[in-house]
């Protein structure tokens, strides 16, 4: 298996084999962070720009650390310190950066599809660090890596995602990745938080969290955003917590080896009870550790693909085009 892509835009377009290959590669990178000198020269000579148009602490730090441990040159760019506020277009912003020869762009953006837009127009590799309500592929990968550590092969395993699925890029990346690995994915949350036609995503829905969690191997709890409540989708945070907070009583419903996950940052006492977040089933901090390994793996694989492209060993494939009327 080789990974010949120039970009990581989403998990939906990856094959099962490609996902497994990234996860396997991440396993070997986990060890680097355990060393006394936590650094390898893999990305020496590569310049990576972290382009964050939305606030992010953990994802940006995780990427930055991954880049530095791979010895890349790193540039950080965030909306508050840029000319974006003056109305410069995304393409102009990026072309200015590329004039200084950047190889890889790690981008977080509030508009779904923004990384796809960019990938079609610039020669650099684009890594999606979360786009709008679409996908957050490295989060999906680190979630799967964490699940694999605790459960082994994920096929046939039941994963329940609880919360605001409609607006969650984490949920979409989990759904695409997990269904490709053969897991059974169940969504739970208030009906106003469930996207239309969920069956088209290959998942089932159970509004009753207790029923949904029965025998689950994983419960992945999503952050509930206050502004969504005010948008009229739920009466209040309290109303959400009453029926969909994952509490102690839910843990006994899980499979004996069942784990609790959360992509962070947590609203303790809203979507997840304090005792659960800090309890023995929680693997939330492991997720953070694995995030670093996954991001190192992704950057490494993209850099290798770029080298192969330069050597003419592979050709750049056009991005998938929508089917056009024959």
């Amino acid at each position, binding site marked *: 298996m080789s990974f010949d892509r120039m970009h990581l835009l989403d998990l*939906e377009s990856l094959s099962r084999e490609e996902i497994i290959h990234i996860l396997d590669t991440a396993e070997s990178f986990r060890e680097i962070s355990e060393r006394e000198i936590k650094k390898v020269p893999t990305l020496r000579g590569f310049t990576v720009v972290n382009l964050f148009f939305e606030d992010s602490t953990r994802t940006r730090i995780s990427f930055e650390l991954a880049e530095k441990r791979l010895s890349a040159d790193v540039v950080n760019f965030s909306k508050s310190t840029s000319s974006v506020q003056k109305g410069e*277009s*995304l*393409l102009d912003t990026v072309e200015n950066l590329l004039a200084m020869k950047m190889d890889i762009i790690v981008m977080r*953006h*509030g*508009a*779904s*599809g*923004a990384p*796809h*837009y960019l990938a079609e127009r610039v020669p650099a590799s684009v890594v999606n660090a979360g*786009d*709008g*309500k*679409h*996908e957050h592929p490295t989060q999906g990968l680190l979630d799967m890596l964490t699940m694999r550590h605790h459960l082994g092969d994920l096929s046939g395993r039941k994963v329940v995602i609880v919360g605001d699925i409609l607006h969650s*890029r984490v949920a*979409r990346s989990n759904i695409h990745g997990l269904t490709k690995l053969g897991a059974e994915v169940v969504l739970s949350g208030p009906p106003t938080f469930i*996207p*239309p*036609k*969920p069956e*088209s*995503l290959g998942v089932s829905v159970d509004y009753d969290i207790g029923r949904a969690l029965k025998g689950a191997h994983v419960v992945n709890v999503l952050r509930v955003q206050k502004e969504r409540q005010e948008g009229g989708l739920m009466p209040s945070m309290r109303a959400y917590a009453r029926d969909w907070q994952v509490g102690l009583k839910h843990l006994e419903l899980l499979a004996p080896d069942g784990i609790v996950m959360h992509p962070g940052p947590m609203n303790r006492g809203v979507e997840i009870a304090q005792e659960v977040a800090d309890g023995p089933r929680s693997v939330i901090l492991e997720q953070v550790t694995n995030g670093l390994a996954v991001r190192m793996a992704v950057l490494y694989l993209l850099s290798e693909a770029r080298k192969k492209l330069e050597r003419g060993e592979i050709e750049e494939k056009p*991005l*998938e*085009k*929508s*089917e*056009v*009327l024959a």
Partner: protein
Amino acid sequence: MKDWSEICKQGEFWLTKVKIVDPEAGRIFEGAVKVDGGLIAEVREGAFAGEGKILDGEGLHLAPGLIDLHVHLREPGYEEKETVQTGAMSAARGGVTTLCSMPNTNPICDDGSKVAFIRARARQAGLCRVLPVGAITRGSDGKQLADLGEMHDEGAIAFSDDGWPVADAGIMRRAMELSRAWDLLIMSHSEEASLSRGGQMHEGSVSSRLGLEGIPRESEEIAVEREVRLAKMTGAKLHICHISSGGSVDIIRRAKAEGLRVTGETTPHYLLLDHSHVSTYDSHKKMNPPLREKIDQEALVQGLIDGTLDAVATDHAPHTEIEKNVEFAYAPFGVTGLETSLSAVITRLVEPGLLDLPAAVALMSSKPAAIIGVEQGRLVAGAPADLVLFDPTERWTVRGKETASRSDNTPFEGMELTGRVRATFLAGRPVFRRYEEDGESRESFTPNLAKEAAIA
């Protein structure tokens, strides 16, 4: 290459060796057409060499010039997107000889002087008849009725707050009531905004995957139902614009069965594309209402076949590349269509045998003419000599860059379509021609500025 414009200058000529597409009689026959003084003087069937001045139609098809009920010309206010001049060129290139211009310019076309301005601009362009649609409310703010009577006096053909649906049912009721005084046509952009607000594309499986906010069918259907009930209540003449949803077709079918004066149009893009075409976040597939599903497409086609829907209009909505070449969520709604509508309809409806050519042409000529009550759109003696000469079998690939419009935001980029316009006549003069010279395809525009043409 003989210059057709010179030949036509005297006002009297025969256009011979053409296959005449008569949308009203529903048939195609070989023959010739005599034009005199901007009108069709005679339609003669059978082989005929012609007498006097002759234009050789070379066996091409000849139909009434197309009538497009829904076009955004953008002038005044948004001249960077389109002007009356460039919009009229785009129309001529697409075989469109009469178009209704929507009032959502800046300022909004909401009084008589603004209607007169657009008509004057169109006369200067001399490439297409432009019939302005006036706003229903002042500034299209949905609050206070505009002076419909004054705009009517200046030549407004219909009334609409297109782009900003009239949210208040009470205002729409009063507009429909007032329209009865002159029996004006109300064109409704039917959208219940509280259901569509923030939406970027059709709400369904693709919006779920892409993480884009959805616009459900119901936002259109509920509004169509409201308009139909108000039309029944008031007796107004109602036309529903750019229908995208199969459910809306059912509502109009019931309204017609009830005998209400309700008509409806759909667009080429709803007939050829669906929400799956949005899956690469291509902003050239973004318009409002949005591309829906295959089942909607089929219902729209069925509505055109059984007569529930009366017209195909383009909702030609030019936007600059600067505006469109951005992240999907930030791009404005709208696509161009004037230059592809005939080809799109032939490709989608005629080629697969769903409609014959005269029936398809009727949707873009005689039927819309009946909706707005104009004498164009017919190929009979006495009608204005607005004509389109075309090859219904020529295959070509759509390239936005080749457009005559100021904007190139076509949703059909790269698609191969069948049927292509070769010449467009406006009031008896060839205003657009595409011809071969020295083995190369050339195009020419010749405005018809003759006084007697009295276009627009």
